[in-house]
């Protein structure tokens, strides 16, 4: 029993620590947004031939160093490349063009190549489409949990479930903030994964509690 209390206390302490560390990290450094969701700059180069992303990656590594870079093929013929990064200086642009010309034998000039500013997609715009479907799904699930486990006190079950769902998501975002995992296209799948695992965990726990209660009731009836 002592050991159980100790392990529970340890879990709570760990969770609290993770959340606090997450909050501190968000307050100090904020989230690490993926390139796709930041204000960026982009250049498009017409290579006149099909190319390998890995070859371009090699060039951008040389030109942009540690900067995050997103490389995409353009149009159906896939003979143009779009290179997006945080900022592109004129020197980097010239360097990039020189290396591309050397590699592909093109005659691209710096004058003809425009650095475009790309505005970030707002976090709320990314999240907005998910709110209503998940709110409805959660609401119906909570109603189900309340009915299915009414013997365990419906209100308690519902409140605990809401608390658990929130807690797991807070922990997830704290971990994301601490580990500096970029907020990007993998964030929503992670949120969904944690959401489903939480639902599974909640149902599993209450199912066990219900079984135990039913066994106890049967025992009491026999006595």
């Amino acid at each position, binding site marked *: 029993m002592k050991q159980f209390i100790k392990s529970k206390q340890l879990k709570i302490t760990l969770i609290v620590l993770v959340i606090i560390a997450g909050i501190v990290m968000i307050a100090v450094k904020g989230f690490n947004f993926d390139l796709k969701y930041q204000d960026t700059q982009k250049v498009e180069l017409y290579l006149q031939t099909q190319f390998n992303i890995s070859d371009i990656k090699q060039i951008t590594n040389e030109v942009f160093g540690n900067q995050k870079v997103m490389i995409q*093929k*353009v149009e159906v013929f896939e003979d143009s490349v779009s290179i997006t990064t945080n900022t592109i200086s004129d020197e980097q642009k010239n360097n990039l063009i020189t290396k591309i010309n050397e590699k592909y034998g093109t005659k691209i000039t710096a004058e003809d190549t425009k650095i475009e500013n*790309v505005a970030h997609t707002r976090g709320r715009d990314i999240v907005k489409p998910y709110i209503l479907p998940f709110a*409805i*799904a959660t609401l119906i699930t909570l109603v189900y949990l309340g009915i299915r486990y009414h013997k365990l006190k419906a209100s308690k079950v519902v409140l605990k479930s809401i608390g658990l769902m929130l807690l797991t998501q807070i922990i997830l975002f704290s971990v994301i903030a601490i580990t500096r995992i970029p907020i990007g296209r993998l964030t*929503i799948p992670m949120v969904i994964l944690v959401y489903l695992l939480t639902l599974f965990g909640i149902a599993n726990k209450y199912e066990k509690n219900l079984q135990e209660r039913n066994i106890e009731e049967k025992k009491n009836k026999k006595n």
Partner: protein
Amino acid sequence: MRRIKILTIILLIILVTMVSFFGVYVHVQNRMENKVKEYALDMDLKGARHVKLVANTESKEVIKDANGNEVETEEEMTDEQLAEKGYTKESVLNNSQDSLTLENYEKSKHIIEERLKSQGVEEYEISLNDKNGEILVQIPENGATDNLVSNMNTVGKFEIIDAETKEVLMTNQDIKLAKVMYGADTSSSSNGTVVYLNIEFNKEGKEKLKNISNTYKEGEVIPVNTTNTTDNTTSENTTNTSTDGNTTNETSTPETKQKEVTMKIDGEEMMTTSFDEVIENGILQLSMGSATTDSDALQEYINSASTIASVLDSGNLPIQYDIEKNEYILSDVTNTQIEYIALAVGIILLIGLLVLMIRYKLNGVLSAIGFIGIVSIYLLVIRYTNVSVSIQGIVGIVVTIILNYIFVNKMLWKIKHSEDYKKLENVKQGIKESYKEFFLRIIPICISIIVLCFANWSTISSFGMVMFWGIVLIALYNYLITSTMLKAKAEK
């Protein structure tokens, strides 16, 4: 007999696995073509149309009267003619400096979003540059994309004006809702379908429409002076001027003309008409094209009506935008990256199956073979049910595989820990109990998934659909295949 049963199932699994992972190749015009359907990929995995909208910086020439009011005229006037009428010509920016505000940029972005939504776009990304109002829209590439793009920067200025005096009678402010409707053509025996653009007006608009339809009712005429040209004819009360055999008759008696209204969108004349009767319900129903039985023509009418409806419904853009860039850009998630993910999942799965085989011996081996079968069928089901796969969809596939692993493991554990796992009754009991326990625990997940299937956002519905088919398959496949093999083995 039991051995044959197990062997037949294993052979079937091998066959399905071959089809699912390697395909079915048929010789077509000197090349081998895979007849197994490709995966339908979502925007995040396939690529998207990138449309860059920038605020128009051009100016236009407008004619103003002595009071400074804009004069609408179709005829080109010389400077002398303008001076004669007291008009002045001015160069005016299409977007005045006052209109280029953050509020209007935001409003424009919102309107474009509304247009995309009303035209059924289930996935898009939109970003706004707060400083210069540049809007970048990313939409899926398909047959409707070009139409969507052309509709994006339509200002959407709606007007109903007097065809004669050009007086503005109604504007966007009066519209409540615009939608597309279609029904059978009852006016002729063609049995065709007519597409209607239904414009519902708000309270004020309803009143205005009632008055307009009363004023511009068929039969309501206005007096006009006309000039008729006829060949070699003369008539009374006319002044005749003969030129090359033709006679121009200047009638001095006043004639009449039907009073009509013109509907304009972005200054472009959509139609000029009068009203059959007074419209009291505040709904203007305009037929698009003629009645037809041709599905292509019908679809075309529906598309153009939907375009107008979405433009009217979303309101007019406060800023005139130009499309600066319109190009298809492939996803930055490459096929190689997807292959690496698939490989990683495959390796983890293989380790998991090895664990099953070690823990549960022959039952584990049979379940592992069954597991490979369910994954193969699952991947085929996703392709043939037209589920578009997104990154969320891939997560859905992984979650389904995990759930199936949990289920199979539970089933095998139940059988192993029964009194005598070689007895058929015990195996049956173990399977029954694991079904009950597992599916009771995933009901909340099932509820969420069913709700997500109906979401209006393709990445969410993709996840929902992928998981829906996965759970259906877990229930059916394990009942029909895995448990049959386990039962057959127990009977032995």
